[in-house]
């Protein structure tokens, strides 16, 4: 029975349709694997009753030959997605006890297609973090360990629970979100595949807001095909999100296995940063040669404003966050700490409810938006964003896709990075993509000298997700898959 959890979504889909096993069998296998893996702290809430009920409904539909695209597939949901009647707290204390009376569009799309919910996944508080250490519910442990070591490592963040759960085979796939790298960096740290689609591809409705001009949902999965299957169900044009784009959702899975012959792959010289480990640079070159061997053309390109993406991000994201998080006031939902008057109540509730990193970002955001500073900071950062986007617009005249490393290092240990700016540097390769609104995918490329997964990133044109799946699958075919040895 345990072998059921080793099936990819594509394989499980076939087994369910052929009635080799039932959706309930598959769900039970995952529920029992989740129980054994609690030491990872990937789930903040398990929903076994709901999972079994949904699986039984799936079995009824499958028996009637009416299964949807994800019928009976058990998924984990990041705690940032509103799920009707189920714990939704963005892993923050400020949303203490919050159970929405509505469902996010992305999760509603998944349930429409027959997926089964296993529970809510751990994450950095309000998706602010790159190590999953800022969660109110404690850190997540990466299923991967250094060769010959028992020391715990972080799974990356903010979608650390999603990535760890997929890598540990305690869900078939997971939802995640990415504001500066929160899908791609944890995917790289756990040997999984994560895609942040083009801004506007997935509806943001019902996703707890962090930085609205950057936030985008996407899947984390075990392989490229599974990521393609999940994104097709998650994506939609939604009247409830005016920034969602009215374009038909393609059959992404069809681009998996499509030859890359003739594809022009850009290598941006600005991504060769000082202090990058030699093994990451070597993997990057190896990936380029894999693609060249399969007939792609490798083209050196320049994205001159790359180094300004991260500092501009640390204006735009905290500014938008400080506005979005103004709603947590102890009145409408979540934590309330009594005070002498209403302002005292606001201040005490927010101080008790938000963790240290979130408070830091609210303060930075409030500062850069405060009177006299708006033009010097926010407007300047948005102008730099135009320049970053323009860099890519020029690149698309020469190339179809851009290849970069996903992260500047493999997974590190909890507590290893305490300086906020050092932590922010984790997103140095991923954040440009959010600033320009482009799609980006992280795909495992190999292992570090001490046996940890290393990821590669592919960046595409707006709505060029199919090219990303096509190219990522070509890398995957050459690199193979990577699975953590089970120690839990």
């Amino acid at each position, binding site marked *: 029975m345990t072998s059921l959890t080793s099936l990819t979504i594509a394989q499980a889909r076939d087994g369910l349709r052929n009635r080799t096993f039932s959706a309930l069998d598959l769900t039970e296998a995952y529920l029992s694997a989740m129980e054994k893996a609690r030491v990872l702290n990937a789930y903040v809430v398990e929903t076994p009753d709901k999972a079994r009920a949904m699986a039984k409904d799936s079995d009824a539909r499958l028996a009637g030959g009416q299964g949807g695209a994800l019928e009976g597939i058990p998924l984990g949901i990041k705690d940032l997605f509103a799920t009707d009647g189920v714990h939704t707290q963005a892993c923050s204390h400020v949303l203490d006890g919050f159970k929405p009376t509505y469902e996010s569009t992305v999760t509603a799309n998944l349930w429409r297609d027959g997926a089964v919910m296993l529970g809510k996944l751990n994450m950095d508080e309000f998706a602010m973090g790159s190590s999953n250490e800022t969660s109110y519910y404690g850190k997540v442990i990466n299923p991967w360990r250094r060769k010959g070591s028992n020391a715990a490592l972080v799974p990356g963040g903010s979608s650390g629970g999603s990535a760890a759960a997929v890598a540990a085979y305690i869900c078939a796939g997971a939802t995640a979100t990415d504001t500066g790298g929160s899908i791609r960096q944890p995917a790289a740290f756990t040997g999984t595949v994560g895609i942040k689609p083009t801004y506007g591809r997935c509806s943001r409705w019902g996703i707890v807001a962090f930085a609205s001009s950057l936030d985008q949902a996407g899947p984390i999965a075990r392989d490229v095909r599974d990521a393609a299957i999940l994104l097709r169900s998650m994506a939609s044009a939604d009247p409830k999100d005016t920034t969602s784009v009215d374009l038909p959702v393609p059959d992404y899975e069809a681009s998996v296995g499509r030859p890359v012959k003739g594809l022009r792959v850009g290598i941006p010289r600005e991504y060769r940063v000082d202090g990058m480990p030699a093994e990451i640079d070597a993997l990057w070159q190896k990936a380029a040669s894999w693609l060249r061997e399969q007939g792609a053309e490798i083209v050196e390109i320049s994205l001159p404003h790359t180094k300004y993406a991260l500092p501009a991000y640390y204006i735009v994201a905290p500014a938008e966050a400080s506005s979005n998080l103004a709603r947590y006031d102890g009145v409408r939902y979540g934590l309330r700490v009594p005070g002498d008057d209403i302002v005292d109540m606001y201040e005490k509730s927010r101080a008790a409810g938000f963790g240290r990193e979130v408070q830091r970002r609210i303060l930075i955001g409030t500062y850069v938006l*405060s009177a006299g500073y708006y033009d010097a900071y926010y407007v*300047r950062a948005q102008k730099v964003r135009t320049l970053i986007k323009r860099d890519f617009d020029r690149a698309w005249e020469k190339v179809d896709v851009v290849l970069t490393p996903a992260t500047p290092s493999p997974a590190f240990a909890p507590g290893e990075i305490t300086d906020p700016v050092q932590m922010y540097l984790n997103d140095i390769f991923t954040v440009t993509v959010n600033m320009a609104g482009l799609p980006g995918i992280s795909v495992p490329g190999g292992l570090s000298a001490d046996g940890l997964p290393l990821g590669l990133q592919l960046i595409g044109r707006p709505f060029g997700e199919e090219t990303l799946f096509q190219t990522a699958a070509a890398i995957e075919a050459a690199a193979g898959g990577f699975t953590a040895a089970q120690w839990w």
Partner: protein
Amino acid sequence: MSVDQGTVRRVARLARLKVQDEDVPRLAGELNAILGFIEQLNEVDVAAVEPLTSVVTMKMKMRADEVTDGHRAGQIVANAPAQEDSFFMVPKVVE
């Protein structure tokens, strides 16, 4: 531009965050480190550049100005820490 302790207190007040006196020096240090990192944007020439307002070129969607939803007062206050008769309850604000 350097953030002093008075600025930390003023910004915290604007953000409605109660900060403890002993945390103010630490916060000032952290904010200065982050602002120091951001400072490098000043070397970019943005004189003739428009700020980015949308990452995807599209026309703002319009919808008909009509009521499409409502009568959910019970659901809206369902998560409130204090509520009565479908109203949010707050400490007295008018004497």
